[in-house]
């Protein structure tokens, strides 16, 4: 009788055994806990600016979104949908209800109402600030399901992790960045996931869901044009490569018709789905699908191929002729409008610079540099081609889709910096495939049992797989060590990626732009809150019907925080109005006062960075004012403000530059100011020169307010003198 092994006390063993789960349940537990951690991580990594500064809305555009959301929660949906705003674009006004994408505002208002229903008395601003991180967390979940659909659960998990911290996405979805993209990327990925699921299952229910996803995307962002062009392109590729099936027909048709109808409910989009050139690809593919599948059906019914060939010839020629004639008539008669400038400049990047200076002047619309790619993607940049390789090795409907999404979005990301955001989900998914497949292969190598001892057992007792593994092990004895080394390498790379992403988020993408920070003389942090100081001064010290003229960058912030009427704002829908303001800023004071009186301007606001060294001020933007003004009013000529093609503000500057309104308003009383030790008075720290015209006298304006660091300066327009 063998001795019994000493067992631990029975109750403990029972307890431990009761916790021991089956492998499937263990795997589920691991997956769920990873997803929960990723969800929380995606949220908290976006909270840097809330912790460092305060919970406020950043940048310029989010202030408009905040103002509209405030209006929505206070006045209800009907008033919001039919809102005519007379406080911006004086004297034209703006039809807000018909010129915005309501998805973001409605989402935030809904969250606000739910929280209030649950008796959490939060202010709408807190909801607005945290909407983007919340939707970023939801995006990680969608990325998991999408990865699972394309490849397997491992790829899904890696995709969720990668997209949770990827800087390309964080840049536009940080807490406080209350902009359309925060919600739109979630809607984009969600729509794509639902569509791929519909194509994979061929179910009408999933297609209906993808139509609703598309509706949400249309309501959220103008970038929905990408979806309505990528999906037809994908269908076309599937048709050409012969991978079409009945499921594709069901998925695309249901999604297109229902999606188009739902999209036309948004007033801003209107009838564009049937009238605009950008949406014609979808319609063309729709008709092509009908013809294609009809022919397929006829071929299936006819047993004789010769007859079918004849039928095919007739039908194809008829269909092509009808389609070409219809398209030609539409485009020639102007009924189908050509591609708008905004999207045409994506296909031809040089178009905007020559024809539409407003689009060219926005910094986010410039072509992307390689350093931006590296900054925003880090290791994903070389994992992307690796993932493409894996996708091509295992082609299916879903992998073809993700490859097309990746390639087209990378092209557009190269054209415009802002569109790196659209490429981020594709890059994360494809890189996740590479990571997951590589790690899987390596761990399979690691976990294969070492059968190197079986040298002679070829009797058939061992399976062929084990025999091949034995041969493999014999040929490369260090295979396991190589696998371990590669795994460590992968782990190192991924941890470097995480570090880089957190560093980028902390340093580059968490600044509110409305509050500036700098290092003081002894390394202490100095905060410049001048913008809000100026807007609150406006709010409290000017009559309620005062009209403020400023460059269009600050329009949204003035209406949201200063609560005053502005002449032009960031919507930039009326180029002539902006050009009028640009002309006023670039003219001599006598001409400018005429323009200002005709627009009923009471106050003029300029941003000046000469005292603090802030370089995004109006003097640096001034040439764009000249170009845009000169585009409409030929009396403003850019060479008048330059000296030998050079833009200067010191003694050698052009006389028109030294006496124009913008110069006077920025540098009024600056000639007496000592800004830096050892430099003469009137030394402009942002340009690094001593200004040319120090003795500025204003005749028709008087200084109303200058903020504590001279960043924002407000001037009052004096009423005309009494006549003798």
């Amino acid at each position, binding site marked *: 009788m063998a001795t019994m092994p000493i067992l631990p006390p029975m109750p403990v063993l029972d307890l431990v055994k009761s916790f021991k789960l089956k492998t499937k349940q263990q795997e589920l537990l691991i997956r769920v806990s990873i997803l929960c951690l990723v969800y929380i991580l995606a949220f908290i990594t976006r909270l840097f600016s809330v912790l460092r500064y305060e919970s406020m809305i950043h940048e310029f555009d989010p202030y408009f979104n905040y103002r509209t959301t405030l209006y929505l929660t206070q006045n209800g949906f009907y008033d919001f949908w039919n809102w005519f705003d007379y406080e911006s674009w004086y004297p034209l006004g703006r039809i807000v209800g018909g010129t915005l994408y309501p998805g973001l505002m409605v989402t935030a208002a809904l969250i606000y109402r739910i929280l209030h229903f649950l008796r959490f008395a939060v202010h709408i601003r807190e909801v607005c600030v945290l909407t983007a991180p919340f939707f970023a967390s939801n995006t990680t979940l969608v990325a998991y399901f999408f990865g699972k659909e394309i490849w397997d659960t491992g790829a899904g998990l890696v995709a969720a992790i990668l997209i949770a911290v990827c800087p390309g996405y964080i840049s536009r979805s940080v807490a406080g960045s209350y902009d359309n993209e925060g919600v739109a990327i979630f809607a984009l990925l969600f729509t794509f996931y639902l569509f791929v699921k519909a194509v994979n299952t*061929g*179910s*009408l*229910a999933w*297609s*209906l869901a993808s*139509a609703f996803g598309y509706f949400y995307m249309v309501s959220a962002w103008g970038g929905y044009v990408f979806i309505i062009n990528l999906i037809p392109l994908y269908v076309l590729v599937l048709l050409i490569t012969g991978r079409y*099936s*009945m*499921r594709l*027909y*069901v998925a695309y*048709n*249901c999604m297109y*018709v*229902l999606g*188009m*109808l*739902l999209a*036309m*409910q948004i007033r801003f989009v209107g*009838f564009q789905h*049937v009238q605009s050139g950008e949406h014609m690809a979808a319609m063309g593919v729709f008709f092509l699908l009908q013809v294609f599948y009809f022919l397929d059906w*006829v071929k299936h*019914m*006819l*047993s*004789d191929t010769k*007859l079918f060939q*004849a*039928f095919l010839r007739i039908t194809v020629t008829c269909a092509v002729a009808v389609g070409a004639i219809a398209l030609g008539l539409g485009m020639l008669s102007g009924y189908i409008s050509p591609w708008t400038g905004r999207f045409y400049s994506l296909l031809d990047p040089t178009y905007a610079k020559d024809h539409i200076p407003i689009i060219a002047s926005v910094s986010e619309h410039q072509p992307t540099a390689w350093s931006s790619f590296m900054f925003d993607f880090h290791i994903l940049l070389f994992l992307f081609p690796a993932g493409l390789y894996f996708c091509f090795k295992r082609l299916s409907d879903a992998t073809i889709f993700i490859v097309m999404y990746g390639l087209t979005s990378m092209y557009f990301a190269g054209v415009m910096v802002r569109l790196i955001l659209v490429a981020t989900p594709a890059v994360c998914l494809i890189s996740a495939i590479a990571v997951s497949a590589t790690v899987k292969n390596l761990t399979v190598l690691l976990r294969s049992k070492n059968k190197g001892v079986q040298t002679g057992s070829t009797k058939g007792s061992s399976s062929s797989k084990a025999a091949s593994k034995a041969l493999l092990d014999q040929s490369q004895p260090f295979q396991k060590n190589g696998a371990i080394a590669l795994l460590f390498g992968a782990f190192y790379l991924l941890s470097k990626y995480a570090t880089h992403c957190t560093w980028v988020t902390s340093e580059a993408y968490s600044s509110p732009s409305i509050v500036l920070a700098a290092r003081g003389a002894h390394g202490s942090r100095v905060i410049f809150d001048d913008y809000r100081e100026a807007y609150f001064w406006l709010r409290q010290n000017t009559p309620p019907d005062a009209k403020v003229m400023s460059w269009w960058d600050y329009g949204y912030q003035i209406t949201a925080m200063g609560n005053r009427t502005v002449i032009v704002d960031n919507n930039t829908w009326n180029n002539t109005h902006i050009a009028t303001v640009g002309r006023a800023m670039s003219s001599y004071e006598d001409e400018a006062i005429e323009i200002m009186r005709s627009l009923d301007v009471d106050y003029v606001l300029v941003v000046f960075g000469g005292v603090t060294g802030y370089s995004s001020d109006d003097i640096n933007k001034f040439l764009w004012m000249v170009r845009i003004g000169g585009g409409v009013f030929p009396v403003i000529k850019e060479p008048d403000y330059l000296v030998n093609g050079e833009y200067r503000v010191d003694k050698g500057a052009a006389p028109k530059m030294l006496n124009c309104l913008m110069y006077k308003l920025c540098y009024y009383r600056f000639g007496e100011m000592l800004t830096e030790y050892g430099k003469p008075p009137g030394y402009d720290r942002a340009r690094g020169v001593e200004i040319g015209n120090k003795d500025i006298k204003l005749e028709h304006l008087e200084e109303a307010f200058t903020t504590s660091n001279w960043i924002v300066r407000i001037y009052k327009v004096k009423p005309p003198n009494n006549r003798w």
Partner: protein
Amino acid sequence: MGRASSKEDAGALFHSLRSAYAATPVNLKIIDLYVGFAIFTALIQVVYMAVVGSFPFNSFLSGVLSCVGTTVLAVCLRIQVNRENKEFKDLPPERAFADFVLCNLVLHLVIMNFLG
């Protein structure tokens, strides 16, 4: 010779199509009838628009798109119910019909909102 043979071809084509179509099951023929009716309604609406003009364009679009939508959904139903399609072998026809009804419900709700 070309014209005579093409006429014969057309005749032969027509006959073989007819005989092949007669072999389809009755439920599919009902769906085809419904599709034909929807297309016919759409054509009437287009002709009417050509006569009186397209002023409330949203009304015209909602009318035509409801016909196109029901056509497309009926064809999808036909595809899913057709027993010859291998891909939908394990999809019960009740589920296909339920999906069809749901999509039609959404379609017509949106149409009613869009009709103006």
